[in-house]
């Protein structure tokens, strides 16, 4: 699989990472290299194989639907770069 510059830019946009023109060129080769390398998996016949969804065969645990945590708004916003009262402050989203 050859990853071109347009694809690199599209992926970077999806991943919300800004990349420079120079970086995009470097990543083109790097990502192509890695994707070519993983393509050896095509040799493996997986037609009748189920994908692995868990490593140990355990039932997903359930708990009673009760509040067992909370009232820690101070803790929740403690590490935020910008806070007002108990709100996270972000650039204006809606005009």
């Amino acid at each position: 699989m050859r990853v071109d510059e347009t694809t690199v830019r599209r992926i970077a946009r999806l991943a919300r990472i800004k990349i420079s023109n120079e970086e995009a060129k470097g990543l083109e080769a790097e990502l192509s290299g890695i994707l070519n390398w993983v393509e050896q998996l095509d040799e493996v016949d997986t037609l009748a194989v189920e994908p692995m969804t868990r490593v140990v065969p355990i039932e997903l645990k359930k708990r009673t639907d009760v509040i067992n945590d909370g009232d820690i708004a101070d803790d929740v916003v403690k590490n935020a770069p910008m806070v007002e009262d108990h709100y996270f402050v972000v650039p204006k989203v809606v005009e």
Partner: protein
Amino acid sequence: MTELTKLTIAEARDKLRKKDVSATELTRAFIDAIEAGNPALNAFVLPTPELALAQAKESDKRLKSGDTRPLEGLPLGNKDLFCTAGVRTTACSKILDDFTPTYESTVGANLWNAGAIMLGKLNCDEFAMGSSNETSAFGPVVSPWRRKGKSDKLVPGGSSGGSSAAVAADLCLGATATDTGGSIRQPAALTGTVGIKPTYGRCSRWGIVAFASSLDQAGPLAKTVRDAAIMLRAMASHDPKDSTSVETPVPDYEAALSQGVKGLRVGVPKEYRVEGMSKEIDKLWQEGIAWLKAAGATIHDISLPHTKYALPAYYIVAPAEASSNLARYDGVRYGLRVPGEDLIDTYENTRAAGFGKEVRRRILIGTYVLSAGYYDAYYLKAQKVRTLIKRDFDEAWKSVDVVLTPTTPSPAFGFGEKTGDPIAMYLEDIFTVTVNMAGLPGISVPAGLSREGTPLGLQLIGKPFDEGTLFRAAQAIEDAAGRFVVPERWWEAGGQPASASAPAKSANAKKSDGKSKAGSKPNERA
């Protein structure tokens, strides 16, 4: 330097209980050792001496009153991937900035509740992505090991390179570590230490910065097999806060060590004899086989046919899960924020500035393989290959109890030797990664030295939740091979700093003790 730091966990525990030494004396010896040795090694990114001494005081009280807990007074290091209440936690990334959790990881809490003392936070590859500790925002860790007659810097392995270097250099008795593709076992092999990745679900992942959730497991790095057994028993637990943690009793691994390996069936997989494997690794493997045989085990040739596909499948699954896990670093709720024109621009600026090169590379690969139209071809395919890898082991367990392989394809390498080629670095994990893909336990135990005089390790792989057998088999190898300690303690003499600004950084970090926001910053150091 004091002899106290050279003790093993088992020896220190005996001395504390016999009152030959106090927890405070022992802790001070390590604080001094860190102060003297860390500028050259860069193993700790944040020493916490005040916190350690406070914990030691409590331990001394309990040792006196007889209310002694299992790890009472034993000073340990804690990988900076484990959240620590009130102490800065960075995953060695700029993006977490001076994030200071208000909670403790379950594994950490288990250790401190058992009486262990935290000496500080240990360096690692950024978000545990790396095999040489060279991707850390705090700069690389220098291995205490050197090639015979040489002084060029070697890597301590990764991602738990701070843990492996600190244990090998006697800056702590033992350390926490995490393993997603080999990050406990590979650094253990490269530094002559013992490291075990337990079965997926044995240790809680709660409070550990997530990399690839279906692969991540915590485990100890220690000087001996016995020490690793002591630590794992304390770290492991069922935790309702991690739905993948398993409700199964944690046995007394230490008590089982003396049971030996008589009659144990050891499998030797032919697929691990890879192209380009060095002769000395092959020789080491043969020695390991001979040692286990001499101790009463039987040796069986086995086949794990899908071994070669584990690494490429891993480099789909791990980046995919990482790209999803790391989506949370958006500059809004915690960590770094680099403002932009609007919200999306802020996200993009923050993530470009906060993530290092390897992390960005993996997020992009992960985003690509999960993107519309590619999911089936990559992620689903890799998860199917994973089923086949697990099936290989299920088949093997019908005829053997453990599997013996080398831990790494080659001994420790120098700084920068593999950084230019991502795939060359990824190949470091070729023998360890299958274990994560199948969710099995694996231990690396030191078994010899390379021609260059640097350590080499052997890996034992076990059945799910059969860590006890792994410890027993590892003990047999340790008994035969002996322990490997660094011959020359050059870092104690105020050796060359790991990088130019390292000493200043450590001093800062020490002063702040991680409690204020004024601690050392990972910035300008990548």
